């Protein structure tokens, strides 16, 4: 059912009811905050609705019909996720709340068992707080060290620094995001993983920005862990995914203890459940996991290659147009092939927060601030940036509207 060629954006837009929204400003919504969370197609909204209207039930532990239906739907999402990232088995797919919880799961369960005094964990300067703070907490607890791979002025990782860290021989984990949520940088994860595996070091990939926007294949990439969020790829809020290679997952102690993750509980000891259930304690977010399947279907139907092509196209246009506005600084790689559909910029001395307010007058939703990447902000020596980020339903006309609003901001701030 995969389609070919350029996206039919007009047709796609019809599937997203919110895009018809009129805002208080009287303007129609121009949604350019997709790196924060994407909008949802009707198919996803309806899947959740259908679940609650027709077969809402707790799962796994009952034999009545609703429970069987709900369990089957829940587990079928797991199959779709496994296939979407080309995992070997559904055993390797753990549902969490979001990318953040997925990374914390690794830090708590794997990290506390495998990181010791003097060990090093290597991350990069472009990481989201979700891929920094868990490692700060872990390394502080264990007396281990956190090391950073720097980023150059064009937004590329300094691979020589990575090499040096590896040479120090103390590295026990490398954790890198595949696409920066600020610079858009697509990082050389294949090289990073290869170099690391040569030394027997596992690698966690933060796929929060990459998995929604380009084809990702865990077997080809050969990462050990991959974390991403449903809500950033047309799915509902409240669902994250942690992929872990089975050999590693099998040896990981549990994280959240409680119902569903056990096989047998006795007063003073417990036998944990099979993979992946061992890592899903308590009643899961059933409705939203089921809703997420509709998002995967939707993306599969378009094809991730075409999603990527569309974003390269619109990002190239946006880099051109925004770059042409007087007083603008754009951050990140200049070549749209090296970046995702994220454009961060500043203009004159207008603070991004003020710019976002002005944008909002025009119905344009952009994000402003540190984007949960304060380490990168320090590196760029800015307090904040404005960020426009694109997805399958965005058009060049919307970029044009952004340019119009930028001109208005320049007028107000006399730039």
């Amino acid at each position, binding site marked *: 059912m995969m389609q070919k060629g350029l996206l039919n954006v007009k047709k796609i837009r019809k599937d997203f009811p919110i895009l018809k929204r009129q805002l208080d400003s009287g303007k129609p919504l121009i949604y350019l905050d997709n790196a924060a969370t994407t909008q949802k197609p009707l198919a996803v909204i309806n899947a959740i609705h259908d679940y609650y209207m027709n077969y809402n039930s707790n799962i*796994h532990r009952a034999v009545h019909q609703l429970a069987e239906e709900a369990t089957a739907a829940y587990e079928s999402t797991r199959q779709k996720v496994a296939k979407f990232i080309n995992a070997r088995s559904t055993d390797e797919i753990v549902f969490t709340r979001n990318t953040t919880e997925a990374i914390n799961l690794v830090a708590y369960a794997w990290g506390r068992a495998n990181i010791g005094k003097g060990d090093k964990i290597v991350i990069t300067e472009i990481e989201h707080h979700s891929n920094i703070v868990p490692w700060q907490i872990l390394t502080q607890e264990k007396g281990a060290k956190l090391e950073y791979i720097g980023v150059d002025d064009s937004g590329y990782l300094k691979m020589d620094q990575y090499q040096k860290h590896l040479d120090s021989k103390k590295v026990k984990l490398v954790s890198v995001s595949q696409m920066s949520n600020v610079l858009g940088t697509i990082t050389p994860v294949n090289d990073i993983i290869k170099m690391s595996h040569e030394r027997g070091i596992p690698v966690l990939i933060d796929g929060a920005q990459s998995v929604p926007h380009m084809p990702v294949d865990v077997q080809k990439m050969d990462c050990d862990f991959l974390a991403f969020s449903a809500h950033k790829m047309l799915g509902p809020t409240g669902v994250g995914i942690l992929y872990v290679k089975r050999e590693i997952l099998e040896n990981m102690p549990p994280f959240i203890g409680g119902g569903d993750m*056990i096989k*047998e509980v006795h007063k003073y000891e417990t036998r944990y459940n099979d993979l992946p259930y061992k890592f899903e304690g308590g009643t899961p977010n059933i409705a939203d996991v089921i809703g997420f399947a509709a998002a995967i279907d939707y993306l599969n139907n378009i094809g991730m290659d075409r999603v990527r092509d569309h974003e390269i196209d619109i990002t190239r246009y946006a880099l051109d147009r925004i770059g042409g506005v007087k007083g603008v600084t754009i951050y990140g790689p200049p070549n749209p092939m090296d970046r995702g559909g994220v454009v961060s910029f500043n203009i004159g001395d207008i603070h991004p927060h003020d710019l976002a307010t002005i944008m909002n007058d025009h119905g344009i939703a952009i994000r402003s601030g540190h984007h949960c990447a304060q380490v990168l902000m320090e590196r760029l020596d800015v307090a904040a940036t404005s960020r426009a980020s694109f997805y399958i339903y965005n058009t060049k006309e919307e970029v044009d509207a952004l340019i119009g609003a930028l001109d208005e901001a320049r007028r107000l701030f006399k730039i």
Partner: protein
Amino acid sequence: MSDDIYREIILDHYRNPRNKGKMPNADVSIHDSNPLCGDEIDIHMKIEDDKIRDIKFEGRGCAISQASASMLTEMVMNKQLTSVKDLTKDDILENIGLTNLGPARIKCALLSLKVLKLGMVKYYADRDPTSAKKLAEDSRAL
């Protein structure tokens, strides 16, 4: 539907299980439980010349899981492991005459097969790692 499930023969095996009990000097003993319902099965075997010379089970759980275990022991008693190794899900369901179970109840019917396969994994671990690996995969899929 329940009329088709809870037939005379199932209730008979449930209430009068064959080959149920301990086996002090078994060659292989193995335990597993169904996380869904907590049903538990232990299987003990004496194996000679790759043949199941004796088999016993212990367990507690629903009529389906216990009757199925009882019938399984009868089915494999004195059989060559080579033939037992490849028993499938459908073999079991046909043997016990329950081919229309829903997904949750199927797990009950197949628990004893799963435990039997795990037992053979143990037996083959050193003797024939390839078979052991295949059996482990099979048991995981049940």
